[in-house]
């Protein structure tokens, strides 16, 4: 892993069209601005981890009784 030290206001360029800007450092947090093309997905890592965990849990539970859950859900739906 490449490790760089940057101060607030300094930038890092990645490839041709991604620029990471260290905007502000305060307390234990760093505020970062990222300029990148629209097709580049930028995510907080924990979002991806949550999605992955939910998928794994859902796959484990897919054997559960969906028919019963469906009836249960329909009963709770407000009347049209």
């Amino acid at each position, binding site marked *: 892993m490449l490790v760089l030290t940057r101060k607030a206001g300094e930038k890092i360029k990645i490839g041709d069209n991604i620029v990471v800007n260290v905007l502000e450092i305060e307390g234990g947090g760093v505020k970062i601005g990222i300029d990148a093309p*629209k*097709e580049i*997905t*930028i*995510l*907080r890592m924990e*979002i*991806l981890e*949550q*999605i*992955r*965990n*939910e*998928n*794994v*849990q*859902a*796959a484990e*539970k*897919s*054997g*559960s*009784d*969906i*028919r019963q*859950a*469906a009836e*249960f*859900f329909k009963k*709770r*739906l*407000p009347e049209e």
Partner: protein
Amino acid sequence: MKINTRKFGEIKIDEKKILTMPEGLPGFSGFECFILIEDPETAPFCLFQSTQEPNLALIIMNPFLFKPDYKIDLEGFIVARSWQDVLIEDLLVYVVVNIIQGNSEKKITANLIGPLIINSKNNEAIQLAVSNSSYSHQHNILEHL
């Protein structure tokens, strides 16, 4: 063609309806082909079943049934994928559902930060990661009905 599923055993599917996940399914790398199994008896829940692995299936559902104001940036999503001639109406939105059978009460949660989007024009499915939203990955769907 015929595929094996844990839930329904061997079933016959229309090859033209196979959905591919070019970006993969988080948590299950290597599995790229899925089929949507809709059964009137389990509606509104459907199964997103791997055509490669019988044991890999996720329960998914239409989020608008329990959250009519659910919003994701589908226009930006289309632009980011450089899909030509694809309209918002061509996209189907589902969310992954977890049915938790407690001792006394059943809980059903939906992951609103990882919607599964199916492009009905090219049969691609992509699980989008939604950043910067107040949505939960464990939205209790019964509580908010």
